[in-house]
């Protein structure tokens, strides 16, 4: 399994957030706070805005009202932006069928800055090192297929490959949109393990899922249709 080096302490504050997409109010007055080492499950009916909330935190959506603040506890030197410190695993796998698994993952590793780009600010020594391509594929259970074309993979295997992206570059915030979709039971455990490991290292995870993943330090945020309050259970 990957190393145990940690991210520096940080937190994300979401206050009175409202989201508007296509002139329709999707979410209103969402409030939560999440600190290093914790996870939040987003739950709610289909279409309630789980993906939209994840996209808003990632900075892809224009925020209607409210605030999403990301704070590093001991950082005064560098300007950091949230967008460089997150992983977003969306519905779509972002996999190129004509490239091999290795090339697919290598590309994302290079693009996300691989080992040079850590999840946190600070000197090189403080930064957690990322897992190698080979190890990452081994962890998600695809080491036998490293040179296969990604087009040959099944839907579940593709999901595993996209989850491997989480491992090749260290980023403190994981935004996972249905990470267990089309995975088998072993896959569900794998996702829970990955998240647990990430939290142990001081990472943060926000997960939209309908499954009961067995994760310590996890809260649940139930999203309701706009104009009702989102609550932390």
């Amino acid at each position: 399994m990957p190393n145990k080096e940690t991210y520096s302490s940080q937190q994300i504050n979401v206050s009175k957030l409202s989201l508007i997409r296509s002139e329709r109010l999707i979410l209103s007055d969402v409030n939560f706070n999440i600190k290093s080492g914790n996870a939040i499950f987003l739950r709610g009916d289909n279409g309630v805005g789980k993906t939209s909330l994840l996209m808003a935190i990632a900075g892809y959506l224009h925020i209607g009202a409210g605030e999403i603040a990301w704070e590093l506890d001991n950082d005064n030197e560098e300007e950091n932006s949230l967008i460089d410190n997150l992983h977003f695993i969306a519905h779509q796998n972002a996999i190129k069928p004509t490239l091999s698994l290795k090339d697919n993952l290598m590309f994302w590793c290079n693009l996300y800055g691989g080992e040079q780009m850590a999840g946190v600010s600070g000197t090189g020594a403080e930064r957690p090192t990322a897992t190698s391509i080979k190890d990452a594929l081994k962890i998600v259970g695809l080491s036998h297929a490293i040179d296969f074309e990604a087009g040959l993979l099944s839907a579940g295997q593709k999901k595993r490959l996209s989850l491997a992206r989480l491992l090749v570059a260290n980023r403190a915030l994981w935004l996972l949109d249905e990470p267990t979709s089309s995975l088998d039971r072993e896959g569900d455990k794998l996702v829970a393990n990955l998240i647990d490991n990430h939290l142990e290292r001081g990472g943060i995870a926000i997960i939209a899922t309908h499954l009961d993943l067995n994760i310590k330090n996890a809260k649940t945020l139930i999203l309701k249709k706009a104009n009702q309050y989102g609550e932390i259970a």
Partner: protein
Amino acid sequence: MKAFLSILLRDIKLATSSFGDMLTLVLFFIMIGVIVPIAIGPDKDLLALIAPGVIWIAAFLSSLLALDKMFRQDFDDGSLLAMRHASISFEAIVFAKLIAHWLTSILPLIIATPMLALMLNMNAQILTYTIISLLVGTPALISFGAVGAAITVSLRRGGLIAPVLILPLTLPILIFGVSAIKLGTGAGTQSAALLILGAISLVTVAFTPFASALALKLTQE
């Protein structure tokens, strides 16, 4: 820089792995050069006269044909979204994709230009000017194309709308591109046209990554 190069290499790799697409594009380009002499008739002088225009039309139409490839697949499979939080800016990524697109869609056309020259009865000097004119002008052509492709990437028939959208913007490129080839239009006209063409290219290439990236970001909202 590593991230920038990885985009460039990946796009080139993806383009060469679908070699058929590349070949189709080149054949389309050559096809126009085959059709024109047949349609015009065997008047060698006339052909030589209109050759620069025909070559630019061929390059123009072929580049429109390839436009849709620039962002469509990455948009559909979620790659573009995943590129949003890369270690380099999204604008830089779009710029890398622009360069890769030029190398894989336009450069093959320029390499195939001598075949067109043969069909159109061009002499060696004109051919040289043509190639220079294409090298200088095509970056502007695909820059405008990239903006069009970015705006229409979420539309299912965007491939057909983008060319119509950018057509008016590309007219100066055609005008100066052709004047940069034609001889005997007066002293200095040709090199002046080439300089203006170069200026258009530099300006559009500098602005396009920002415009396209913005269009793509808005599309993803």
